[in-house]
């Protein structure tokens, strides 16, 4: 093996002197020019002629992916997979997602920055960099700025490199011999590292186990489960009545269940059916009518359902002039509040189903009392 050097280090006192020396060292064309400094110096990458670091772009892309991941995941769990209303907010409230989106963005971005720098760009794991063996390293990690001319092939001339660095203003020059072993990862090292980690886990585990066993008062950490909190079906000293679960505040309304038709039937006469007359709506109305109304009011709403004979009271004949003249709102009111012997159907029917069945009753009335122009529509 020929006697070669790894590099020649030129030591400078100030970053400005280092920056000034870089163009001269590069012009000498004696080897690869590399700088070692205690902290990052702005503009040194351009001076060294390094390509623009791709790290910024990677961090931006991963940050955006992090934000979108957090948004998508939260939306999926809280609005798609298991829709649940929390704190009375609408399903999929983006405001509540923002803090977690922010955190995940930072997490993705910093991990990309840190790990990308170390492993992708700095090519770690890489042990025993030759410069670590130099005398100059104590200065590099403190207050000295080093410019290295590194050998690119066997023809590296360390004397010429040293002279070039001195000419560029280096206060001191050090010739680094070639390292005697590979700086790259070896299997022995991997085994030693894994063994060390295993041993550390073993010691910590045994220690924690025996300490908590013999000294149960010494808790290694305060568990989150031990904090005071309210449980839905357990007693609690927090509230006066001793229950953990409390009734909602009077006047609380569940989302999507705003009370309607709360006044008298006449007061509800002006309510307007919000649903359009579409086949979908009529299909819903027909289904509801068949399951909930038909047994009493009859298939065409003429008050002769199959259960009529079983009751003392006779169900309303919806085909009579009185009910044909009813505004939509009064029919709706009867569905919500019930009338005479008819019970309220509000607990079983959603807002949409109630109004759909109103449309369907209207259709039944129209079908039984068709006018000439209705026939024309059918004929066309």
């Amino acid at each position, binding site marked *: 093996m020929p006697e070669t050097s790894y590099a020649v280090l030129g030591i400078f006192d100030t*970053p*400005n002197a280092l*920056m000034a020396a870089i163009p001269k060292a590069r012009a000498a064309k004696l080897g690869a020019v590399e700088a070692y400094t205690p902290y990052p110096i*702005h*503009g040194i990458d351009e001076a060294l002629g390094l390509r623009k670091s791709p790290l*910024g772009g990677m961090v*931006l892309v991963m940050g955006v992916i992090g934000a979108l991941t957090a948004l998508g995941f939260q939306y999926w769990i809280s609005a798609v997979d298991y829709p649940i209303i929390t*704190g*009375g*907010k609408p399903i999929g409230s983006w*405001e*509540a997602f*923002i*803090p977690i989106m922010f955190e995940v963005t930072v997490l993705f971005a910093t991990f990309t920055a840190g790990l990308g720098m170390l492993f992708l760009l700095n090519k770690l794991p890489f042990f025993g960099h030759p410069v670590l063996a130099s005398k100059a390293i104590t200065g590099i990690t403190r207050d000295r700025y080093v410019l290295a001319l590194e050998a690119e092939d066997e023809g590296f001339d360390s004397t010429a490199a040293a002279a070039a660095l001195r000419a560029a203003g280096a206060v001191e020059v050090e010739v680094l011999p070639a390292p005697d072993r590979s700086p790259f990862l070896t299997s022995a090292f991997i085994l030693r590292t894994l063994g060390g980690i295993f041993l550390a886990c073993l010691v910590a585990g045994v220690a924690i186990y025996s300490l908590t066993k013999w000294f149960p008062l010494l808790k290694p950490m305060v568990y989150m489960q031990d904090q005071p909190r309210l449980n839905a079906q357990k007693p609690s000293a927090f509230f006066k009545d001793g229950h953990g679960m409390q009734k909602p505040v009077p006047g609380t309304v569940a989302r999507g269940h705003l009370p309607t038709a709360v006044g008298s039937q006449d007061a509800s006469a002006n309510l307007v059916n919000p649903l359009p007359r579409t086949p979908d709506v009529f299909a819903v109305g027909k289904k509801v009518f068949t399951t909930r109304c038909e047994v009493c009011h009859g298939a065409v709403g003429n008050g002769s359902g199959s259960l009529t004979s079983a009751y003392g009271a006779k169900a309303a004949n919806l085909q009579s002039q009185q009910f044909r003249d009813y505004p939509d709102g009064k029919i709706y009111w009867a569905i919500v509040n019930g009338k005479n012997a008819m019970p309220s159907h509000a607990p079983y029917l959603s807002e949409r189903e109630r109004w759909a069945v109103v449309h369907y009753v209207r259709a039944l009335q129209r079908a039984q009392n068709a006018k000439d122009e209705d026939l024309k529509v059918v004929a066309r």
Partner: protein
Amino acid sequence: MSPNKNASPLLWGAMALGALGVAGTYAAAGPERFWANWILWFVLMFTLGLGSLFIVALEHLVSARWSVPVRRIPERLATLLLPAIPVGLIALGAIPVLYPGARPEAAHHPLLAGKAFWLSLPFFSVRTLIAFGLVLLGLVVLVKGSLSQDSTKDPAFNLRARKFAPAFMAIFAVVITLIAFDWISGLTPEWYSDIFGVYVFAGAFLSGLAATALCVLHLQDQNRLEGVKGDHLYNLGAFLFGFTVFWSYIGFAQYMLMWYANLPDEVIYYKVRLAGAWRAITISLACLHFILPFFALVTRDSKKDPRRMRRVAYLMLGAHVLDMYWLIFPTLGAKPLFSWPEISFALFFIGGILLWIRGAMQKGEDMPVGDPFLREGLEFRL
């Protein structure tokens, strides 16, 4: 400020035209709209001046060296506080018109009765006068001292400013909080937010930074400020970038907590601003004040690019105007008012502000030539 020597008559013309509209506003559109516009421009002038003074004080506080060569710019911008004070004194006339807490009915209002003394006209005025006095003290010590150092070259000023800077930070916090709470959130005295002062501070600091960056670029166009380079501009850009995030962080934190708690007296503030046409303004504010400048300045090179920085600085100043408009104008009604009164006020005040800054930029040295750290600041490299 502009290299064009003919700009001055143009600015005077704009001011004169605006003055006509300002007078017309009071006569034709009513005192409420007049005072709302007046307060808007008072707050804008005051926050721009105070934000600039904050930059000056920050430099002394942390003994920053990089900003010494450009320090004269925020110092000159901070003198905008001098015309802002008479504008503010005139604005005291708005208190009985626009501020519900200062009206006699407030004594019977269940929420305002307890705050009646604080919100009353006399105490409101006294507080404002105290704030103005504190600001003048800051101007005298930091700006006048620095100007006189040009001729005396006395390094004792640096020591004095360094000792005064921590005290000024406390003064600054009090003044910006008073201005924010009294003049802006006082318009809706039932509503309160602890962080409101910080929100207004973020906007004030951003507007000071944007104006500083713009003036540096304009002076560089005229081959002044020799030695100020991309590295200095980069630092201003980094501050701008960082504080757009800070502004949105504070703004969103305030919004999210109120949205979550959903208490009627708090959430009404946003209910108004998220209904109808205000909704569009709220969304565009988030875009113009945060998303656009954030992505415009996110890369390293963009902060050194004079063209990019100039555009972002103009955008930031515009966004600050929109921000203050968004805070003040919903009190006038559910529909955002923007018509000839607003345009005349803008002409009048922008003309006046530009004339003042233009005049300030012509006076004296462009750099603090007496500052012993100027050389170090000029040698600054990132």
